């Protein structure tokens, strides 16, 4: 695929992954800068609509990232998120949004390095897939 800079929308939970992202920043780790963090209180509040919206607006990849199982500040929000991602992964690939474009990860507060690594890897994977078609074409 051609060399392009993918846009990644990352819904990160306020408690764990947002902290990890902060940590990556303070540790001066470079991760791809066209990763847009959208802070949510909990991955359990990420409505499937948000993911669909991101893809239709042209996001090349969407990441949802929250606390490890058992760590959730709100007890079990991450488990609920996992089901929603499962659901979306049954729907979106049919329409040409490859499953690799949608990712769910658990990144704990101390995992700043892991956060940066995952972002790098995700960008590489999405680059290999090429741009999201919705980015270039009219979406009805």
């Amino acid at each position: 695929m051609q060399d392009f800079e993918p846009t990644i929308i990352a819904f990160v939970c306020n408690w764990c992954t947002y902290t990890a992202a902060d940590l990556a920043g303070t540790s001066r780790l470079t991760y791809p800068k066209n990763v847009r963090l959208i802070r949510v209180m909990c991955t359990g509040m990420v409505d499937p609509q948000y993911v669909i919206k991101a893809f239709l607006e042209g996001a090349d990849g969407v990441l949802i990232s929250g606390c490890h199982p058992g760590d959730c500040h709100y007890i079990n929000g991450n488990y609920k998120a996992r089901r929603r991602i499962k659901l979306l992964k049954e729907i979106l690939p049919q329409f040409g949004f490859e499953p690799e474009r949608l990712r769910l990860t658990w990144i704990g507060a101390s995992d700043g390095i892991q956060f940066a690594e995952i972002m790098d890897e995700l960008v590489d994977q999405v680059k290999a897939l090429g741009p999201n078609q919705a980015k270039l074409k009219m979406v009805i």
Partner: protein
Amino acid sequence: MARKIGKALVVGAGIAGIRAALDLAESGYGVILIDKSPHIGGILSQLDYQFPTDHCGMCKMLPLVDRDASSQYCLRKGLFHENIDITLSTELVSIKGEPGQFQVMLKEHPNWVTSDLCTGCGECVDACPIEVPDEFNSGLGTRKAIYLPIPHAIPNPYVIDYTVCTRCGACEEMCPTGAIKIPEKARGDFRILVVDDELIVRDSLKEWLAEEGFAVDMAASGQEAIEQLSQQTYQLMLLDLKMPEMDGVEVLQKTIDEFPDLDVVMMTAYATVETAVEAMKIGALDYLVKPFDPETLIPMVKRLYQERAASEGRQIEVGAVVLCGGTAFFDPASGKNTFGYGIFPNVVTHLEFERLLSGTGPYHGQLVRLGDGQALQKIAWIQCVGSRDLQLEADYCSNICCMAAIKQALVAKQKARGNLDTTIFYMDMRTFGKSFERYRQQAEAKHGVRLKRARIHTVDRHAACGDLILRGVDLAGQSSEERFDMVVLTVGQRPIGGANDLSELAGIELNSLGFAQTEAFSLTRSSRSGIELGGSFTGLKDISDSVVQASAAALNASRILHAAGGSLALKSSSFIPSTDVLREVPRILVIVCTCGVRLPAAVDTQKVIEQLTADPLVDGVDFVEQTCTAAGWEHLEKRVAESKPNRILIGSCLPYVYKRKIKDLGQRIGLNPSLIDVVDLASEYQKHVLEKEPKEFITQNVTSKLEMGIARLKWIEPSAPPDIPVIQRALVIGGGVAGMTAALAIADHGFQVDLVEQNDRLGGNLNWLERTLDGHQPTELLQQTRTSVEKHPQIQVHTQTRVVRSTGEVGHFQTTITDAQNTEQTLDHAVTILATGGREAATSAYGYGTSPVIVTQKELEEKLSNQPLDATQLHSIAMIQCVDSREEPRNYCSRVCCANALKHALHLKEINPDIQIYILYRDMMTYGFDESYYTRARKANVIFIQYQFTEKPQVMANQESVRVTVIDSIINRPIQIEADLLVLATGIIPNLPTQLAETFGASVDEDGFFQEADSKWRPVDSLKEGVFACGLAHSPRNIAESITTAEAAAQRTLRILGHERLSAGKVVANVHHSLCSLCERCIDACPYRARSIDMDQDRVLVNPAMCQGCGSCAAICPNGASVLEGFLEQQMLEMIDAAIG
């Protein structure tokens, strides 16, 4: 929030300190929280994974009601609470005065980095030439002299370590925001006078000290010294004790009054140490024993220099003090060091291993051998290193190590994805906490952690491959050698360095081992009234116990504050904006900080303006130079005054720095602060980004970030968060010692309490308990407590009464109770404490019930006190521990039985030393300082026989005697015991009917005990706010521990009772009733049971005080009838839009 009269000081900002501070702050008191380190979190800042969940979750300690008074982010990042004033790098100097009115002197170490200016860019680190071992990584890595104490804190200003900083000034030059100011006053201004009659001593001292940059003068005699002192100001005198003519003591006597600012350190030979100690009584600060080397002298001088550099003491007035002094750990390199710690690179302590597991650790959480970097394949843990060791004067157990080791093994296995062999060498596996026994069994059975009952005596290293060789002996008596990649030493607790000083200046007593001493039946009361103890200062504790104890300490501190006049009446703190902007079209003013020239250099500002103003709701875009400075902020305020926007977006760095400024600004211009937002732009144009990315790209990113901020602001609902009224009364169910304690604690704060007891008298298990292992008198405790309860004007005792039903939620429950005459009565109350207790479990094991000589522990206690059991007539007693316990279905340790067995054994031996006593056990759970009674019992010739779970003792009994056959695991042969009495330790079961718990919205765990909201962080709360538990209904505990849970539960209720109204957070769920189809999925989705359905009005209701703003309800609602304020669908969709740009 309005402050109550009364402030408390919490010393130590570890978990216990944070819990105590938050508890006090939440109930409305002002709190000063200090820590001598430059960060909060104590040891937990280094621990990512904590048993028994193997996860963190520290954030669950944050306030649940009035959440916005506190920061709403990971507690590892930091803590902000409007009632808590945190000062770090600060030490306690003195505590004078009386409970309710202490004068406390604090000393703060100066910070050369201004935290509000430091953006954390880290350029200073690159400049700093000094590299030293990093204590955050337990010395496994290095750091610079300017460093981040912990990598993830917010605010996270860099800190300079004075002890190693050379003041070269390189960092000061590099700092882009001018945050670093190294004081002019260098070491050269610190003048030292060396007084010694021996030239060689004078010369070498001068050389050493001058090399460190200090100004040094010398005097060869006392007389000469006095002369020099009168001519020049000195900060420190190093004074030889033995000199001809005028000796050191004489010099000291002559100078001490005249030069009060002079520090004097005596230098003495070993023979005259006593004289030096005498000199310290006169006023010398310390002494050095000759001969000494620079490694001894220099740190001491540096310390004195630093202390002088520290700001002058700050005096504060507080009503009560909570001391959470923490704990230290055994240094395995000390003593005989048979494990080769510090010699073999792969022998580490369990604290170091935590850092190896951590993502912020030196190897980023990769499990590798130190040295060659190979993946670890085989790790051994050696338990009780520095614990349970009389040779090391450690006749105690360190409580947490068994669980800590299992946890480390499990986490390590998980990290290695199963490719790891883990073995724990232990003596007794002490899994006495709630759920710990199952945790252990799962670790073994499900995850394959090997537990070997063996004490390793030596660690050797294979010369060729570097493998570590462990030698020990197994239970069967086979000596074995096994190779490991890494050996983790689970090191035991030690009193903190300076414990003696702390005890002296606080006026509290230490126990004989050097830990803080608590009063009888209390885990928090020190010997000095008004000073409460928290955390591991009184002995190492796991998180759950620390948190419980800290809440109890807060309660007792609060009691003193209350008694001293702190009232609990509070005004609502919610801020109502003077301008109602609800119906106005948003007019957003965007102000971007240029950070000097950094932003314009990196970003095309004109393009930013163009793109943002395309949105008609954007009123204007302005660039202001350095909003973080006073001038910059003034400029900003001026712009605001000119354009009168109804929403303001600030683009800058460090959003949290602006929290208070925004609040002030909002109040001044009459705009709800929630309509002012800050987005972090600095990370977009940091040095390392600029080097990589083109200007166009950065411009796009900055614009997009601002657009996201605009999208968020646009849809903010500017209404004040809702609140709910509170019926300021409490209901306590259960009149045992826990229930009575909780009732008294609440009533002592002036609130009405209904205490419901189903029996005809109060006291519960205290009615039959005669004595404790440590020799205290439960009967006296019962007498006192019962009298206090019965006399208390605020407590209504309802005996022979039961709860029939209850409805409602936190703030207002309605509970119907019925008494012996079946008269029903309905009580209104805000909170409920379940203190329904527990009892000794019944059994049919080991022939119980077939012979009068087979009794339970409780029956033995009763027989010894009330009934004619004459111990002098007994010859032999056998005791079997863990009867029906630690196996399904009662697969838990009851925590008290081992101590009980020791108590009985020692008591019987005292009465009749000739009785043979056999204690048949699986693992002796004599945790903490109870270990010494175990040793004592061994010494008193009590025979302890360890039996295997798979080979339980056999019992044959007739009416007079009993024969017990047990296979001794050491000699692996059956031992036959003929005994006059067999005592069974059957453990504790709770008296908490599931239905009762559920009536209040709480639930019970698989063993019937109260299910906590979170075993570590909310150990006495139920998941449903407003319902708490304590005592045996919560978990098996001894009397002092039960009382502590009761005090903790009471403290948790005070957070609620202390308010007339409970306010919600800004991020709170809401329902648009017109859209709601009443499918009730949101009710099921709410983890806090904050939602309910109002059948009469056909509406789904949200209790805003219970809602924690997770948004589960909003996500499950298909049409946006359920919304989360602050994260409305419009906001989210527009933000996504803006993010993609």
